[in-house]
């Protein structure tokens, strides 16, 4: 009987629906509705103030065509790419892995000190951290200028992207470090020993023994941190997108245009573009996850990612 196969709990359609309903309502109210609302707003000339705030009119795809010819939007898209590549994929992953690798055989005391320090950067509230960095980078009397004997050098103006990339690398490395140190523990020591006895050097050990075991973790890590970094708003607290849009990554661009400039409709259109990019990243990840193989992510990781992508969209 097909009913036995599809209705193992014997609840029946209505009661099963009753159990799912609360979850569906939550998803509908907090996820589907805002997304649809964003699509609708993106097709209007809705503004924060003025006539268009009281009576917005439908403009179809005008906001999207406007975005394509908006020099600030296209540059913002590139800056976001630069930011994700620089701070997440290169910065956090590599630094995180390097720390995890070095701490593997370090003494317990050293290890816990390093881990605590790195974690603190990650755990402190963004506002606090930004103030610390503003103080450090301040052009008159900042710590960095004092150390380097470069008084009056304005880091956030001269190197805005480099500053926020290094900032975010410093801030977010803890996650990669933790994930990789957990992953490295799953590499069987016996295999490493055998490889050593067979005469494999460090690079060969890494390529042939370590990497196959942590491949799935690398994937999880890269995609999770790219998603977060893509949506990261914290650089606003350092540069507010300046100087003259030079560090205006997409979330900051949306904030500046939608709230600061009052163009809510345009902001919604850009938000939708961001949402689509988020979805693409998530889909790529989910499809990669389905590929079986050694070192594939655990169920917890899959759940974490699924939760993460849901919230982000």
């Amino acid at each position, binding site marked *: 009987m097909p009913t036995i196969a599809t209705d193992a709990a014997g609840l029946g359609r209505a009661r099963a629906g009753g159990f799912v309903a609360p979850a569906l309502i939550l998803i509908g109210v907090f996820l589907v509705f805002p997304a649809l609302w964003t699509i609708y707003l993106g097709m209007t000339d809705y503004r924060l103030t003025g006539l268009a*705030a009281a009576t917005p009119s439908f403009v179809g795809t005008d906001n999207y065509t406007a975005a394509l010819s908006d020099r600030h939007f296209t540059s913002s898209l590139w800056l976001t790419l630069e930011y994700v590549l620089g701070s997440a994929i290169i910065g956090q992953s590599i630094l995180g892995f390097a720390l995890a690798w070095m701490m593997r055989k370090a003494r317990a005391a050293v290890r816990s000190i390093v881990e605590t320090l790195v974690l603190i950067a990650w755990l402190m509230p963004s506002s606090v951290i930004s103030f610390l960095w503003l103080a450090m980078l301040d052009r008159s009397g900042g710590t960095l200028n004092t150390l380097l004997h470069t008084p009056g050098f304005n880091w956030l103006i001269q190197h805005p992207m480099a500053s926020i990339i290094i900032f975010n690398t410093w801030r977010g490395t803890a996650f990669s470090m933790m994930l990789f140190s957990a992953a490295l523990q799953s590499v069987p020591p016996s295999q490493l020993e055998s490889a050593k006895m067979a005469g494999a050097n460090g690079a060969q050990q890494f390529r042939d023994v370590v990497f196959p075991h942590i491949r799935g973790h690398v994937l999880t890590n890269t995609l999770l941190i790219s998603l977060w970094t893509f949506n990261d708003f914290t650089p606003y607290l350092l540069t507010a997108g300046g100087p003259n849009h030079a560090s205006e990554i997409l979330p900051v661009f949306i904030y500046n245009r939608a709230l600061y400039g009052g163009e809510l409709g345009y902001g919604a259109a850009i938000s939708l573009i961001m949402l689509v990019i988020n979805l693409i990243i998530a889909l790529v990840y989910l499809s990669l996850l389905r590929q079986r193989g050694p070192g594939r992510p655990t169920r917890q990781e899959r759940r*974490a990612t699924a939760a993460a992508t849901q919230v982000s969209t």
Partner: protein
Amino acid sequence: MRALHKTAITATGLAAALILAACGSSSGGAGGSGTSGAATPSGAPAPSGSSTGTSPSGGASGTTPGGGGAPVTLTIASNAIVGGKNDQEASWITNWVIPNFEKAEKAKGVDVTVKFQASGVDDEQYKAKLALDLKSGGGPDVFAIDGIWVGEFAQAGYIKPLADVVGDSYQDWDGWAQISKAVQGNASFNGKLYGIPVGTDGRVLFYNKKLFAQAGLGADWQPGSWADIISTAQTLKQKLPDVTPLQINAGTAMGEATTAQGFLPLLAGTGVSLYDNGKWQGNTQQIRDVLTFYNTIYNTDKLGDVNYQLDAKGRDESFADFAAGKIAILAESDYLWRSVIDPKVGIDPIKDKVGTVGYTLIPAEKPGSGIRGQDFVSVSGGSIYTLNPHSKNAKLAFDLMTFTQSPDAIKARLNGTAQITERNDVNAEVLANDPMLTFASQKVLPLTTYRPSLAEYPQVSLALQQASADVVSGTSVADAEANYQAALEKAVGKDKVISN
């Protein structure tokens, strides 16, 4: 090992959810903000708003309908915070207005509690926060806004004419007789009054007399043209290499300060008004002259420091550095004099203010080339107090608003300092104390210009800021001008732009 692994992953998942929730609320909030609470599940306002430590929609929510014996809560909001921005106003509201108003109402048998919603942020952020509150039907009962926002707030329905909110009885307030029609215009839109203007101001060039003396320049400076400003700044640059000779606001980071203190006084000096006969100044010779002047200051002659214009906190830095004697000439509103560098209430006090800081009228491009054929020009504006149309106690809110603008209240706010207030009776008394503000009211106000009180103005202002930002960061005047023209056409429509 296993346990650690699990913990790490759980922590990751949790962190993932938290971080993305935070991100989601900022970018998602931009899209559907205000209209549906669903877009911001955490209830967090715009991220910058959270730094002010005030809850956005807490406004009138505590208000009980009715009145007549039942306790009432009113909220008053301003971009002022004790110990920070506009400390004088914030302290006055907290220590004078609230206790005295509550006492006066109690004597009448009304049990009212007034709360102050403080902010200490950029004006544009304050504006966004207010607009979102009002859009969602919340917001404070009485609040301060810049006079140039009246048009766009009124068109959006966030504020309504006093006649609609309070009824015709608003005319009974005896203060109106003391406020000139010109100043009332700052709180009006389409001929209707939306609130009470809170004083006005004027723009001048401030300069540091001590630095001038060190550079061998006289303490009485009166430049007659832009060329005079440049040549003085060049002398300062030669004689005092460690000092920034000249700061004229530019860039988007400074917001309206760029337009009011920088672009518009310069534009008035070329002889045109930004908006005239239904048309806005687009790619015209006058706008190009202003941008070329910026280019001379910041690029060709390097007389100004572009860092102040591009840095997110540039205006605050320019205040601090002017007070510290690191900037010689600064174009600012009299606000600098009475609030920022004031030894008593200032955030960057200068002890011997009168002996150190000089002020002079802003010259036109050439003598006689200014608007209305003037030799000197200025720009004025000012805040207003207005009422929330959703207020459940509009009459009482109106009483609170007028209470703050009684002669006693204004004098309590000024507390011995001076400001050009909206009331003629108070001005006669307080301005005599202060040479600069006497100068501002007698010499600056007669030749000043006001910004167009139109809903499109803030967008035009933003386009002007962007044009100056482009020029000071190295874009050619021609390219900046072309971008400006495009942005302007988008904001107001092609048929409302003149160019030549």
